[in-house]
């Protein structure tokens, strides 16, 4: 094929295109994925019942705050990563700081003098549920994000996949927080962190396959 012929074909009857659509697609994917997963949570494990005291609400708020800050920072990176020439690493740095801060907070929040209790708190009866539910709740947001990302032009597939997994994992964690009966920062920092990291690694593995264009 001659290049001139290709250029003629591409520029004949050129359609105007809109701008800034990628941000909207990603936001739609996050909202729709999150809402569907929330329904899935209601239908399966259900929200946490009883004991609606203030400290519980406080913990729920802190879990949500953590998860949403990861979602927002990650989404900023995702928007940049589907626009060639814009993909920087600063959001990744910010994400690492965020995760590190959450981990430190979890350790320092251990009730004073109970350092010996850490294994009892971390390996609470609930840890398996947490580790299973969060990845499960990640599937829908991840699929929605991948669909949205495929409309763009990601140039670093592994990194984009990893951050998509991370963001979807954080959405899953935010939804799971409504069920989670554990009120310990250490527990949250460890198991939410592990579950989200797991999702990010799966995302990194799948990215090059799912996002190629």
């Amino acid at each position, binding site marked *: *094929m*001659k290049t001139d012929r*290709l250029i003629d074909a*591409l*520029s*004949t*009857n050129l359609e105007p295109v*809109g*701008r800034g659509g990628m941000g909207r697609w990603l936001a739609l994917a996050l909202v729709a994925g999150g809402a569907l997963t929330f329904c899935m949570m209601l239908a399966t494990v259900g929200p946490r019942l009883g004991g609606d005291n203030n400290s519980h609400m406080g913990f729920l708020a802190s879990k949500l705050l953590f998860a949403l800050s990861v979602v927002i920072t990650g989404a900023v990176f995702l928007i940049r990563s589907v626009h060639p020439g814009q993909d920087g690493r600063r959001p990744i740095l910010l994400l690492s700081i965020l995760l590190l801060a959450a981990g430190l907070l979890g350790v320092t929040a251990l009730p004073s003098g109970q350092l010996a209790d850490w294994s009892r708190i971390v390996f609470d009866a609930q840890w398996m549920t947490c580790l299973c539910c969060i990845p499960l709740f990640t599937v829908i947001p991840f699929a929605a994000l991948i669909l949205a990302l495929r409309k763009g032009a990601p140039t670093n597939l592994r990194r984009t996949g990893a951050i998509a997994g991370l963001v979807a994992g954080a959405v899953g964690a935010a939804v799971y927080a409504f069920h989670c009966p554990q009120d310990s920062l250490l527990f949250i920092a460890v198991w939410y962190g592990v579950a989200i990291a797991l999702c990010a690694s799966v995302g990194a593995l799948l990215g090059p396959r799912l996002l190629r264009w």
Partner: protein
Amino acid sequence: MVAGLDGDAAAYKALLARLSRNLRAYFKGQLVRIGRGPVEAEDLMQEVLMAIHTRRHTYDPAQLFTPWVHGIARYKMLDYLRRTKTSFKDLPIEDAEAVVAQDDVEGIESGHDLDGLLEQVSPKMRQAIQYVKLDGLSVSEAAARSGMSESAVKVSVHRGLKALAVLVSKRQRS
């Protein structure tokens, strides 16, 4: 490019023509280091032009244009190298074409066969692309001739071009 995003075909055509020359030089320079000839550079350049076209909505006019093109060109080159690695390992020496293609003029034919590629997309998309993109009919003429609605023609062209871009990027050299 900004005019092209708004639908100015003449400006867009001029832009693609200029980019094709830049990209040809760029890929020739890059590929010659690993012993690949101008036909591969032409293949790759055409693939990038198609990618630029089908992904033009990801260009943000507030940002610089060159890094955007470079991002796409680099991505496509890495992708190309990855998928052609094994087939090129089998070749003892690069193509004979490399010898005859010393003159650097434009108009080398790439290995892509447009008609062959068009055969592989759905008949609806093929017809829409043929009318609107190759024969230069307007969307309404094409709609009247094919019996589709105007929006169906637009959608078919859009999807067809994307399908062609995918076919081009999956094509293995035999």
